[in-house]
């Protein structure tokens, strides 16, 4: 009895030691390259560091929360750029998230249908763009949307004179409002251009995504739908066949079965896809870097790209870092809100 207890204690010590040895490399890497950098960046966001030497030496000017107030309350180029980037990203999120979710769900439902053959092939075809390099794919889309390129020639087949995608900064909501005859885009009403929140006029807030932004929207919907389709597909395959059969016996038509049986069961996956979509669309960067660098006329500028550009091109590390923390806050808030809704409804 005594012996066994002694050995047990020895084992416990050895297991603790082994446990920490096993996790040590991961803890070290994540601590050094994730936790520590965040703390360092918090400091830098409170300074005016210009990239020279170390941000922790004594000569670096401490500015308190000024880098944050410059983003929100001080009139100037920094706020104008930041708010423009926020506007662009809001429109981008508002289109990409619903579009990719609906497309992914639609494809999953059709691929899952038992009557169709070649399921593996179609699943692979839809998923393939998701696994390729974002940079390589952006090169392909640059080629396709080039002036008199693939898309322009394809539109010409249908008699449509397509835009010069990457140099067209016109806001599509402006174009739509103009097309409906509500306002004249070249001469917007003074009530809208006069003022507005955060240094942008109401007219600027109401631009909608620019024509150039649409190319990036299409690219991203095209590359991410496949991944989300797989998630829906996995969830659909978990729905017991007997449930659908029971609904069928009760006389439910296909559309009714989808609305009242399938969709409610897909709700957890739906929320997951929406959350992941919201998180990733606020982080769009690679495609902007390769395809537009924020141009034309700053209409593809996003907070992620702006923060990179401020730090690494303008050497304004303070405001650049402040933008990344605001972005962090936006993403955390969205995640928490999603979680709360999910907990209540599922």
């Amino acid at each position, binding site marked *: 009895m005594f012996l066994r207890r002694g050995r047990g204690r020895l084992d416990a010590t050895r297991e603790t030691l082994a446990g920490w040895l096993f996790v040590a490399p991961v803890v070290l890497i994540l601590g050094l390259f994730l936790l520590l950098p965040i703390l360092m960046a918090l400091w830098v966001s409170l300074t005016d560091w210009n990239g020279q030497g*170390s941000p922790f030496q004594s000569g670096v000017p401490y500015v308190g929360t000024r880098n944050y107030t410059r983003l929100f309350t001080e009139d100037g180029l920094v706020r104008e750029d930041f708010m423009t980037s926020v506007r662009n990203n809001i429109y981008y999120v508002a289109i990409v998230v619903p579009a990719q979710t609906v497309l992914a769900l639609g494809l999953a439902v059709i691929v899952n249908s038992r009557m169709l053959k070649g399921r593996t092939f179609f699943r692979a075809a839809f998923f393939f763009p998701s696994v390729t390099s974002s940079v390589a794919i952006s090169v392909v889309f640059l080629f396709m949307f080039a002036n008199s390129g693939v898309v322009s020639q394809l539109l010409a087949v249908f008699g449509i004179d397509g835009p010069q995608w990457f140099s067209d900064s016109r806001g599509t909501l402006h174009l739509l409002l103009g097309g409906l005859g509500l306002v004249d885009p070249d001469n917007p009403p003074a009530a809208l251009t006069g003022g507005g929140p955060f240094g942008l006029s109401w007219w600027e807030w109401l631009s909608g995504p620019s024509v150039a932004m649409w190319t990036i929207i299409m690219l991203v919907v095209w590359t991410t739908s496949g991944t989300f389709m797989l998630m829906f597909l996995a969830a659909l395959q978990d729905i017991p066949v007997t449930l659908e059969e029971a609904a069928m016996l009760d006389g439910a038509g296909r559309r009714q079965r989808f609305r009242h049986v399938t969709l409610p069961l897909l709700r957890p996956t739906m929320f997951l896809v929406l959350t992941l979509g919201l998180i990733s669309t606020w982080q769009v960067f690679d495609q902007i870097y390769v395809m537009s660098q924020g141009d034309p006329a700053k209409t593809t500028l996003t907070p992620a790209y702006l923060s990179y550009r401020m730090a690494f091109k303008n050497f304004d590390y303070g405001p650049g870092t402040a933008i990344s923390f605001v*972005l962090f806050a936006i993403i955390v808030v969205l995640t928490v809100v999603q979680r709360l809704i999910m907990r209540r409804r599922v």
Partner: protein
Amino acid sequence: MRERRSLASTFAGYFVLIFFALVFLYPFVLQIGNAFKTEPDAARDPLSPIPHPFSTSGYERVFGSTDFPLWLGNSLLVTVVVTVGRVLLDSMAGYALARLRFRGRRALFGAIIAVLAVPGVVLFIPKFLVLNQLGLYNSYTALILPVIADAAGVFIMKQFFESIPVSVEEAARIDGAGVFRTYWSVVLPMARPALLTLTIISFQGTWNEFPHTLVAVQNPELFTLPRGLADLVSGSLGKGTQYPLKLGAAVLATIPVAVIFVIFQRYFVRGANEGVEKG
């Protein structure tokens, strides 16, 4: 009546599937076709997938007038080291978190879940700051070390180890094998499917990684394929659009992942669906 309706819906189903298969795959067909064109041909008739005349000059220039071979070498080196490192380190940590009872285990797992929630773009400048401060900026170490372990991999491995029965390990432990010995010769061989999934998603993720290279290195000698490709597009080529060259370089950069995708498709699918359990 019912049969006719189901026939019609089968037809509609195939129509939608084939339409979207074209939408998702035809850009790659155009990419490959145009990479084998001459520049005037690609500019005049980009919509045709068939080169006329057939030309390999785009590819010749990929190797002749860009640093493609260098980028390829760097990408291979970084990808192999990071993948091996992730598989080893993530599985060790995942095993410890799943099986070993040690003080602080719960807190540690909580911390790893928290880390999973940190969005990558937020870390651009912070990562640069730490690499700069440690004097690692512009080195292979900067490309590799920060990404050699990842929280998502640890999570996948922990989930896996919790799903296999504990009895085999207990037998080994009773036979007197130490913790490391048990892990190495009993646990790891059982974990092959999970290890393969992790290998594949690590390979794909590292091979395609772009933003990390932006904040880790600046020296063209250290460019990986995505970085080099982005550099080509942003104008290092000089005059002309040179689409056959750019598309050719993009094709070559896509091939390794495409081959792995075709062979190991189900592991990719599994990897993508690990995300579901994460949520």
